[in-house]
């Protein structure tokens, strides 16, 4: 359980970081909190030639009020968001989700950007930030771009990020005071990756209704028809949810499909009752 050899670099700024990644042409990996990469290095599943340590880049650490959204730096840790409870009006869901990720010792190091880039199908941020309609700001050595978080992940552990691109921040739209949200996970043990998960945001003021199912084979999947029904005040039956899941959540056996349907229904009930 010891990592294979790699070189280590700690760039001073984002530009140097993306340049180092570009020079390595796929042989380098960014290191943020190391809470996903560390285990993979120790298991020797990942064997990059170079680690580019971005954990202490100041420009990735800001939490800023952008008016109609909160700007969360990619290097912000889960623990910082957990502790921001009460300080992020319109984005309370972030604190709730952060609190439920892994364990405090992991949350103290693990980052939002690392979670999105790692793209574990069962991870919390790809699901929660898709439901929140967040936008990721991405920087490469030559130019920057934006992508909805819902379109960032293309498969298990796979994203649209190029080897030399880094997530810089995510912009999370602020919800109105009338907004409701729900977030439900089935975990065998607290802090473990869930077997099924779901996130929903219903905001009457913005006419937003977004519902996503997570912990599937690949990326979280949108369930827009169920979201609209929930906005109109109807919690769909488990059978209806299963029917809506069938085309987007392929490969599930009967038990898995039911588990996901229950997660979706409980998230919706939370939202409507909250």
């Amino acid at each position: 359980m010891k990592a294979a050899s790699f070189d280590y670099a700690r760039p001073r700024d984002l530009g140097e970081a993306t340049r180092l990644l570009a020079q390595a042409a796929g042989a380098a990996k960014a290191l943020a909190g190391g809470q996903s990469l560390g285990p993979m290095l120790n298991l020797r599943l990942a064997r990059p030639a170079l680690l580019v340590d971005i954990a202490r880049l100041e420009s990735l650490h800001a939490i800023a009020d952008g008016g109609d959204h909160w700007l969360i730096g990619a290097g912000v840790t889960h623990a910082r968001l957990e502790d921001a409870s009460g300080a992020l009006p319109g984005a309370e869901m972030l604190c709730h989700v952060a609190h439920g990720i892994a364990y405090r010792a992991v949350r103290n190091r693990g980052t939002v950007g690392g979670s999105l880039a790692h793209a574990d199908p069962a991870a919390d941020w790809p699901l929660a930030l898709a439901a929140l309609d967040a936008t990721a700001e991405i920087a490469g050595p030559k130019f920057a771009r934006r992508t909805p978080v819902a379109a960032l992940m293309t498969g298990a552990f796979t994203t649209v990020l190029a080897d030399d691109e880094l997530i810089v921040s995510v912009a999370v739209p602020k919800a109105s005071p009338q907004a409701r949200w729900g977030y439900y996970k089935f975990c065998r043990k607290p802090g473990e990756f869930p077997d099924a998960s779901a996130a929903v945001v219903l905001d009457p003021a913005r006419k937003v209704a977004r519902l996503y199912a997570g912990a599937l084979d690949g990326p979280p999947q949108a369930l827009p028809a169920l979201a609209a029904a929930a906005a109109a005040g109807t919690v769909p039956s488990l059978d209806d949810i299963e029917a809506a899941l069938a085309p987007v959540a392929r490969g599930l056996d009967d038990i898995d499909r039911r588990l996901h349907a229950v997660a979706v229904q409980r998230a919706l009930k939370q939202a409507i009752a909250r």
Partner: protein
Amino acid sequence: MTTIDLTVNGRSVTAAVEPRQHLADFLREHLRLTGTHLGCEHGVCGACTIEMDGMPARSCIAFAAACDGMSLRTIEGFDEDPLMAELREAFSAEHALQCGFCTPGMLVTAHDIVQRLPDADEKRIRLELAGNLCRCTGYAGIVNAIKRVLAARKAGRTASAAVAAPAAAPFVPFAAAASAPAAATPPAFARASAGEPGLAAAKAGWTELVESFVVRRPPAEVWRILGDLPMIAACLPGAELDEHDARNVKGRMRVKVGPIAAAFAGAATIERDEARMAGTVRGAGSDGATGSRTRGEVEYALQADGAGATRVAVTIRYSLQGALAQFSRSNVARDLARRLIGQFAANLDARLDPGRAAAPGPAAPGEGLDLGRLVWAWIKDRLARLFGRNV
């Protein structure tokens, strides 16, 4: 070697470390601070928990080279800490340890719980302890020890009045604006239409995956093409043929899943039933780098799908063993297999119909399936065409 300067238990330390050395090994082997224990070495058990810049963290998945300038506190650094003295006393009184292996990590975590959550009840204590495993005590003693310290501290301060949360107004139903959620599926997959999935685990420990795709050529032609092994290998991202005859192939397959890069070398035998236009490929392979092994079979059958088109139904069954399997839940391999089929179908289609714009071009030989890159290449290609130059 990287030179680091850091503070450990209040003492300045300068050391030259190999970047790959994890922090716990550095503490134990370089500084001889063997109070930090190692259980799982991948972040799960909590035995290695220490304080990094004042906050508990796993030292097994941190690297010493990345700790330059940090201040660390291991269990040895708590000797003079008054709260830790209370916890030690309570752990002893409540029988919160037996073999002691988990104890350093438990104490560092307990210290954090008492400091951060002075009002924690038993439920919260148990939740906060979920990241520290103990094989001896059954946790009751540990939970009681932390409760004892919290209660003693509480007795020493005035109780904080509980603030009732304001009651939320009831939910008001509304009509959601129709918004097309961003497609999370890359464009190339739209045409690899998949059939109803079947997931009956045919053999114990094996995963089964049923998919299908349509090729716009008549069955007889597709049947012939599917007998062309070099062509198949060229369409399968990451595949390389080493040697083959009509029934046997030897080759390699590279897959890239996020930071994992595996290169399986293996062999397979092929059976083709001309009359039914159906075939089976059975094979096995292993990847030295990740120490993973896989065995699997692919069944395929052709059927006419309207005029001049063929539906190829594919059933894949496989088992995965070794580090890769240990790491990934079964759905990850399933997702990968499904994307490989989608990519294969798109590449096959592009080859059969070179006039049309290819979907994300076939991966260069030897390059594994890396969807991020493929989709990016595709977007760049589109932009280049739009602006008539290379982006």
